[in-house]
């Protein structure tokens, strides 16, 4: 680490503590702006599903909601890792390729064997987690910009499995994985129960554990976190490693859904993974955002694409509308003037005092508003 001047110590040191307090406040009964953002996202999604009945008779049904949940499952899983990396101020562009890696390995290693499921899944997650850790090491030790580092890793991995598979992944889709999507438990597809468990665990890790609080601290100000004695590099590597693990997991799930693997299977999930996190109100600069909001973002985006598809417009217009709605969502959900902000007057008044860490300039800017 570089040396810092005494003045930097003075301003930056209290941040982790304040951030931890803010997190503690969030986990209590009061709903902060991030909570409202999440609620707004879920509310908007439900509203859109119900309102879409006007467009098509097949819409507005429980069947539709279930299908949207299934289609969102990959982005929801990816979004956790991507969300943590964005939280610490990074960006993981390798999620698509690592997801493919997870899928190809699952396709090859698990096969029809039920026993293989128990050793192969941990092994695959270990491999993809290591790839993530390498990203983290590159970003910290080599100080490469995260998007260059993760882009480079993804190119290398793509090259390796192109050579390894000869362009054609071989294997069998595990019937157990497929049945997670096709069979039901207590009226819901098994995958949705698994997803629910994942979401609960991920929320606990991100918002209710000391590990999560430390990540917030690192994202808010790595320098301050370092001075406060946090193992910043280790935390950054851990965030990337988790992103590797969740990417691998999403790849395994995709094999179950699509009952097959190709060399580009994960590619189309990279941008949605970032979009879900950002639509969920996270700051791309780090230090802000919750996982539940990411889940809301993923659901909103999938619902949106489903509904737009039903409008019967040409592909060009569909893409234009999709882009416009995302832009509107971002405007509506942004920190200082968005829905979450408008719904929490108390927080608005006290923001400049309670959250000095959000980003240096923001309290000043909003001071006038309060």
């Amino acid at each position, binding site marked *: 680490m570089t040396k810092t001047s005494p003045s930097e110590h003075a301003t930056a040191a209290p941040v982790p503590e304040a951030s931890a307090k803010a997190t503690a406040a969030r986990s209590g009964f009061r709903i902060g702006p991030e909570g409202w953002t999440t609620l707004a996202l879920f509310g908007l999604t439900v509203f859109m599903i119900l309102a879409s009945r006007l467009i098509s008779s097949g819409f507005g049904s429980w069947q539709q909601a279930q299908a949207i949940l*299934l289609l969102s499952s990959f982005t929801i899983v990816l979004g956790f890792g991507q969300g943590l990396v964005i939280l610490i101020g990074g960006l993981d562009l390798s999620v698509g390729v690592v997801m493919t890696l997870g899928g190809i390995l699952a396709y090859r290693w698990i096969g029809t064997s039920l026993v293989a499921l128990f050793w192969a899944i941990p092994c695959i997650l270990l491999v993809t987690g290591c790839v993530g850790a390498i990203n983290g090491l590159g970003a910290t030790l080599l100080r490469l910009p995260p998007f260059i580092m993760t882009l480079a890793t993804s190119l290398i991995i793509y090259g390796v499995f192109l050579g390894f598979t000869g362009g054609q992944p071989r294997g069998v889709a595990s019937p157990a994985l497929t049945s997670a999507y096709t069979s039901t438990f207590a009226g819901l597809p098994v995958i949705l129960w698994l997803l629910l468990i994942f979401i609960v665990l991920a929320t606990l890790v991100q918002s209710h554990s000391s590990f999560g609080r430390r990540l917030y601290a690192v994202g808010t100000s790595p320098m301050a976190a370092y001075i406060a004695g946090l193992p910043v590099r280790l935390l950054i590597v851990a965030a990337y490693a988790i992103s590797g693990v969740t990417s691998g997991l999403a790849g395994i799930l995709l094999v179950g859904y*699509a009952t097959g693997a190709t060399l580009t299977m994960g590619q189309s999930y990279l941008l949605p993974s970032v979009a879900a996190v950002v639509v969920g109100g996270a700051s791309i600069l780090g230090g802000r955002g919750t996982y539940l909001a990411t889940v809301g973002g993923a659901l909103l985006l999938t619902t949106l694409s489903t509904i737009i598809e*039903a409008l*019967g417009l040409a592909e060009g217009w569909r893409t234009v509308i999709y882009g416009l709605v995302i832009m509107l969502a971002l405007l509506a959900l942004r920190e200082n003037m968005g829905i979450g902000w408008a719904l929490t007057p108390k927080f608005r008044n006290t923001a400049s005092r309670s959250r000095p860490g959000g980003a240096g300039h923001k309290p000043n800017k909003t001071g006038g508003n309060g």
Partner: protein
Amino acid sequence: MIGQYLKRGLLAFSAAAALFIAAHGESKAQDKKFKIYLSLSYSGNDWQTEAANIVKALAATPPYDKLVDLREVISGTDVQAQISAYESMIADKADGVISFPVSPTALNRTIRKGCKAGVLFFMYDATVTEPCAYNVSYITSGFGENTAQALVNMLGGKGIIFENRGVPGNSVDKRHVLGAEAIFKKYPNIHIVATYYGMWSAQTSQQETAKALIAHPEVTGIWSEYGEEGVLKAVLASKRSELFPITGEDSNAFRLALIDPALKARGFTGASSGSPPATAGYAFKIMMEVLTKKRNLAIHNIEYPLPWVPADKVKVCPGDEFENGCNVFPKDKVTDSFTTEVFEPVLLPELTMKTALTGLPKPGATIQPLPAALHPAPLEPGINCGHCEPPADLYKLTKVQPAVH
């Protein structure tokens, strides 16, 4: 003293080395191999890999194994990358380039430059509009119109359908859809309620179809390009008891489903047609006949016959080789997305399923000559020529006839 011995030894050694190099060079000049580049745009789906394997297998089949020095270059889906790959091949004095072109127009300048330098350019499956290149493709053989008519026939002239297209902006996708819509528009009771892009990927097709099925559960038929296997998976996952006709391309899983009694009982039927990887082998053989001066090729656009397998013509191959018109393989032999069109008994008797999977030649096979007359492809602007007049009967039906009016 020792220095002198060393000097003498060194002298003797270099003389021997010079002799060896001269001799080797001479022998190389005697049986000079044709330097051929295989330029793939992208390897990542079964189709591209099979096409490449077929070319590799033929290049290793006698007598071509002694005549061909084949080098493979994968340049991704980026046009710029393929342009620079072509440039390097021209600079390396290639005799021929066999390639899947990324764009019908963007490569023209480079190809022209290569033609001037004496390089033969053979394109398979996708085409270019540069007149000095040779296009070998099924594109003009009417996939779109024939599958659309087959679907209309199966639906009895009325129904609510989806279109699962390929990659937006791609000339092949455009050609297919124009052909299909030329048919659909003749039937006022055929309603296309959803058109989406499956990107020629089974997974994307599956997801997009799943979305369309939520919006339009009343659908009664789907017309699909490559990716039909994903379309079928989405339909099956929607848990409807009654199924409907789907037309698509040549994936193994789709063809097997067409003869699955359980699915048939639920109303599933369809037709399988579309892009055959064997085209690459055909293009390679034509190129080799030109290079070895066995053929004087006057036409530049050569049509590969359209594969056509309606549900009642699907037949499982007992072994790895072509037998009795078989056209699909048992589930445990290949992947779901394996493109089954790897046989062409007349044009390509050298191929087996293994050659497409591994790139190794069929044991004991030798290259058989192609028929004297090759089928010329009709001119289609933007597909295989720049500014030309398409024939008046561009979308004429060749495989099915209208059964309803």
